[in-house]
């Protein structure tokens, strides 16, 4: 049975329109005009125990809203969801006891307190036994390299330092479910790797179910077996990264480095398309259903002297951008 079940989840935000000027403000007191934003529009999906799912989509698609509903922060307008059989907003306290959440945009820590004191407050809020607190705290401090940060007030931390502390804070009570909303935003390369490593480990070794929202496709490629794409409050597709690629386009790329002094004279009947021509390097797109890579290479090398060849998938960013745009290649 699935651990997380989301059914026809809809969230409409009602926003009071402000009217300009004093007269508008006074009129607004009497009768409010509301604008509606349909952030979620019938979202359905299920996540099994121990899965690590990427939840991606363009800005304003409804990712953070989904995470907030699933966390019990927001009550949806209609539809339902259950995590471990509990409805988050109805059974909030029991639900969040087993839940860790990181919002990359905003810290969960106490702004004025040193990190270690935030951790101690969390220990008391979650009633974490002292020995578990010590063991888990030490482990996370080592993995996320927090040693030098523990005595620094949170407001003095850099974005990346704070994010690492936030991840640790979300894991201190050893939750079975973890929601990460843009956890790698603003991180340097090393911090990103450390963050991913921790997420991978707790998922693989402790079987923690993870939903990860991100705009960094490297996060997705390196972590997620399964990806959900959401756009305008609806789930657009659900599957592996490879299957996502196929829904957008089966196209692959052949990168050709021409021999010294040879210039590109166009496709001239080759069953491919020019993606990019830059000096001696040509990038061709082809459909493997239409023409096998070996055949294309054979016909190409018959026509042009070639120094080097490489076949690859189009960059994932490109695939995703096309997917968001609803376009087919």
């Amino acid at each position, binding site marked *: 049975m699935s651990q997380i079940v989301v059914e026809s989840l809809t969230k409409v*935000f009602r926003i*009071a329109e402000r009217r300009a000027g004093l007269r508008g403000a006074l009129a607004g*007191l009497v009768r409010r005009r509301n604008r509606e934003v349909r952030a979620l529009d019938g979202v359905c999906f299920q996540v099994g125990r121990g899965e690590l799912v990427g939840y991606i989509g363009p800005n304003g698609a409804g990712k*953070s809203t989904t995470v*907030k509903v699933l*966390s*019990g*922060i*927001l*009550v949806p307008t209609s539809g339902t969801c259950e995590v471990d059989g509990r409805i988050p*907003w109805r059974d*909030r*306290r*029991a639900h*969040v*006891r087993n*839940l860790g*959440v990181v*919002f990359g*945009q*905003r810290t*969960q820590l*106490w702004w*004025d*307190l040193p990190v270690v*004191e935030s951790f101690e*407050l969390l220990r*008391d*809020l*979650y*009633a974490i036994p002292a020995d578990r607190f010590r063991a888990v705290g030490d482990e996370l401090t080592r993995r996320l390299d927090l040693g030098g940060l523990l005595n620094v007030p949170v407001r003095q931390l850099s974005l990346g330092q704070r994010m690492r502390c936030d991840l640790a804070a979300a894991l201190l009570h050893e939750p079975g479910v973890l929601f990460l909303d843009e956890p790698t935003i603003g991180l340097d390369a090393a911090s990103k790797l450390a963050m991913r490593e921790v997420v991978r480990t707790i998922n693989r070794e402790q079987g923690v179910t993870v939903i990860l929202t991100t705009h960094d496709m490297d996060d997705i490629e390196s972590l997620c077996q399964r990806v959900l794409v959401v756009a305008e409050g609806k789930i657009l597709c659900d599957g592996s990264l490879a299957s996502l690629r196929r829904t957008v386009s089966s196209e692959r790329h052949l990168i050709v480095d021409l021999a010294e002094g040879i210039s590109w004279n166009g496709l001239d009947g080759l069953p491919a398309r020019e993606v990019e021509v830059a000096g001696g390097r040509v990038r061709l797109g082809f459909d493997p259903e239409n023409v096998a890579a070996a055949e294309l290479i054979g016909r190409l090398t018959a026509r042009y002297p070639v120094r080097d060849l490489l076949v690859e998938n189009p960059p994932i960013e490109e695939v995703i951008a096309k997917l968001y745009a609803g376009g087919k290649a």
Partner: protein
Amino acid sequence: MNEARLYIRLLETSIRSQLQYRASFLTGVAGQFLVTAMEMIGILALFHRFGTLQGWTLGQVALFYGTISVAFAIGDALGTGFDRMAALVRGGDFDRILLRPRTSVVQILGQELALRRIGRLAQGLIVLGAAVWILEPAWGPAEIALLVLTVAGGAALFLGLFVVQGALTFWTTESLEAVNAFSYGGVTAGQYPITIYEDWFRRFFTFVVPLACVSYLPLTLVLGVEDVLGLPAWMRASAPLAGPAFLAAALGFWSLGVRHYQSTGS
């Protein structure tokens, strides 16, 4: 850790950070004391000029004033977190409260205990002392118990007003001054015997915001004077319970508000 111990634990944190800024803490206490002391001097001047206030003596008015001041100081100090809700909601930081496996009420209560309210508390206690000194009353345990109950009921009522004010931020974070008028206006109104006011005002502060139940009604019994409303003694003695009742209703309204919380877009 149960909710009561957690509350103490959260307060420790708040108090420690307030004491970090010692200068601002001390000026805060002094400021509170000064503001209320000025009010008191105003009242004294009034009595000096007219002798009584619609038949109420200085000692009696001091008892009303002191009781409400102490009650308000306690309610206000406890309810500071609710008074700060607008910022928490507008910035979406209430998310954090909901992510923790504790009631939002204990977390908001524990957010801050405004120590600078000690200024107002001290002043209220001084006025209460002055009332006793002037009245030289022959109070037995019953009167003293009722006085304590009145203060407690008043504190609960004012805390309830802050809870209502905080809950309203879930619908709008603007125009909350209107609600502030009830708590801050209530304390000013309640400092005097309610008989000096117009009828509608009296009714509002008896039945909607039951301020009279935690000042006028029980205090007339403590003072042993006639109540112009003619209520029986048992009703006046149990009137302070309207404070906790109001607080309970306010907490119900709060839970309704939490379900209405919209967070922020980013």
